[in-house]
């Protein structure tokens, strides 16, 4: 199993550009998440999904969009990039056998994004 994979690893965007961060997991996990981590800080949840076709906002959703058309993929879209979106973005997944409680979260390697 590759686990959780993210592409690209690094990206530099100009202000106002758009891009999609890709996330794929091969563990058949139903839950998937997007976090951002600013320098020296903890992780903040942007969006999450409890299954294909279902997404919901986290703590810091403004400026981002997500979709979940398959169990494996959970892309994060940045529209009209701003310097405040400079951060490291992590995708994660977890499994809920009962649908009411999830267990360990597994993280991808991250995407380092700079907006100038």
């Amino acid at each position, binding site marked *: 199993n590759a686990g959780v994979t993210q592409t690209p690893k690094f990206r530099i965007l100009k202000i106002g550009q758009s891009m999609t961060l890709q996330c794929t997991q091969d563990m058949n996990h139903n839950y998937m998440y997007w976090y951002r981590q600013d320098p020296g*800080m903890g992780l903040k949840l942007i969006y999450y999904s409890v299954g294909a076709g279902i997404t919901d906002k986290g703590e810091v959703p403004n400026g981002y969009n997500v979709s979940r058309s398959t169990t494996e993929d959970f892309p994060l879209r940045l529209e009209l990039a701003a310097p405040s979106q400079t951060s490291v973005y992590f995708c994660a997944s977890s499994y809920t056998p009962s649908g009411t409680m999830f267990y360990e979260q597994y993280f991808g390697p*991250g995407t380092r994004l700079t907006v100038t």
Partner: protein
Amino acid sequence: GIQVEQSPPDLILQEGANSTLRCNFSDSVNNLQWFHQNPWGQLINLFYIPSGTKQNGRLSATTVATERYSLLYISSSQTTDSGVYFCAVERGYTDKLIFGTGTRLQVFP
């Protein structure tokens, strides 16, 4: 919302020393996990431990849910233990974890 506080914020150790990291949370939780972020940024899940005690090699964790804290013990520390340790909790089946601000550990040879 629930508050998650970790202490100490920074810890410097010599190889071979033992350490205890603490995570306090402001309300009851149904999910608590410890993560290690290595110096290259990779996040690794160490423990899923909403209550009780678990051990994995030199690492062990204890959560006392009734008193709203969890402890992560690192014994015989190695330079590879360096990085940031995060505690994260879920309250009330919200489907999401709230992360603390972390403890930065540096282990020197």
